[in-house]
């Protein structure tokens, strides 16, 4: 584990190598959160209780807020929101395929377990960014970490309750067997730049270290509840991080940009644009 010894400075004084490493870290953060939020919204009117509808909607809003913080940080390198989201290609995105899988209607166990696996990974990743050598990441992380804590708590409390019911626990186990290899894609590299991310102190843990901590944490918790965590070591393919995605992502992406396209937009209009033009 390496620690940040020096500060890289702000967006406009990074070397090419530093910028590439910082961007690679930021894109994965932004894309994961954004797509995870897109999928959460499915549950905001389909969860089993009004309370859980609200929780799903709220978690989605949190992740969208975090995605916005990360995309804003990326825009400091001169990219526009249009090119990052609305006018890019589905294969430009580098989120893990874990977050793009669709839900099956009624399978609340899948939603709860997926949130749990993701949020623990997110918690570990953010811990590894708290001392990032890139200030923008370091300081936004602290803000985000505060909001993410509730997500893990929420998922854990649902899993504890579901573990006590035979039908619900069977569904959780099925979801675990199905989703586990996909969850491993969260820890896959985006490319050669991965080594630089750690060498330059952008992140203070390697992917292997993060995966190991994640595995230990979820195994302890889930085993205690009576679930069997798969022993599998290989991530599902495609992994997403290398720009290769499942067909589900193409469908979701089409849906995501359809309003922008149908309205013939060329820019991401802001609430206040007309008055600013005065």
């Amino acid at each position, binding site marked *: 584990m390496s620690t940040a010894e020096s500060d890289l400075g*702000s*967006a*406009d004084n*990074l070397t090419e190598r530093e*910028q*590439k490493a910082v*961007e*690679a870290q930021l*894109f994965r953060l932004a894309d994961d959160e954004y797509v995870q939020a897109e999928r959460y919204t499915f549950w905001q009117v389909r969860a089993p209780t009004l309370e859980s509808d609200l929780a799903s909607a709220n978690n989605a*809003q*949190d*992740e*969208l*807020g*975090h995605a*916005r*913080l990360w995309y*804003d940080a990326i*825009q*400091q*390198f*001169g*990219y*526009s929101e*249009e*090119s*990052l989201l609305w*006018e*890019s*290609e589905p*294969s*430009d*995105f*580098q989120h893990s395929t874990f977050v793009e899988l669709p839900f099956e209607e009624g399978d609340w166990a899948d939603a709860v377990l997926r949130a749990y696996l993701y949020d623990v990974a997110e918690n570990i990743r953010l811990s590894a960014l708290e001392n990032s050598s890139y*200030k*923008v990441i370091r*300081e*936004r992380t*602290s*803000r*985000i970490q*505060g*909001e993410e804590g509730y997500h893990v708590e929420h998922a854990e409390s649902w899993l504890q309750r579901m573990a006590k019911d035979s039908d619900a626990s069977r569904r959780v186990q099925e979801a675990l067997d199905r989703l586990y290899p996909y969850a491993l894609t969260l820890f896959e*590299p*985006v*490319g*050669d*730049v991965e080594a630089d991310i750690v060498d330059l102190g952008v992140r203070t843990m390697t992917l292997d270290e993060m995966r190991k901590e994640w595995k230990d944490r979820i195994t302890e918790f889930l085993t205690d509840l009576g679930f069997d965590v798969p022993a599998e070591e290989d991530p599902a393919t495609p992994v997403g991080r*290398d*720009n*290769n995605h499942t067909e589900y992502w193409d469908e979701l992406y089409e849906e995501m940009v359809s309003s922008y396209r149908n309205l013939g937009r060329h820019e991401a209009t*802001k*609430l*206040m644009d007309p*008055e600013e033009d005065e």
Partner: protein
Amino acid sequence: MSSDYDRPRADANAEPCSYTEYDTKERAVGDVPATGEGAEGLDRDIWAALYEVEDPEMPVSIVDLGLIYGLERDGGDVTIDMTLTYSGCPARELILEDVERAAESVEAVENADVRLVWSPDWSMDLVTEQGKQALRDFGMSFDQ
């Protein structure tokens, strides 16, 4: 497909620049929140105008919520450092615009810009006594 990092293709020639839609600054300098206590003259007028801006969801001034982290003025140019209570705040553009307008409503202020600041973290501890009173009247509780 190459496994090397190459996102996004749509904007391959993007150049780093320190200006974004709303300029951001990573960390406020000095104690937060800033409330304008002891301000005089034109600064005092600006603070009075900022006090008039309320949170879109609660009848409490954004200054009393502790969201203003700093105010700098150079002649008629004002820069306000501000945070938000929540990263997913859907009213972000609205609030930032309200704050700029409020400052610009003061005669002698030519231009006001808000810089969004995310550090240090905002928490309930930053709400002023007056703000807490307003929130209590609104039905919120602080005594846990």
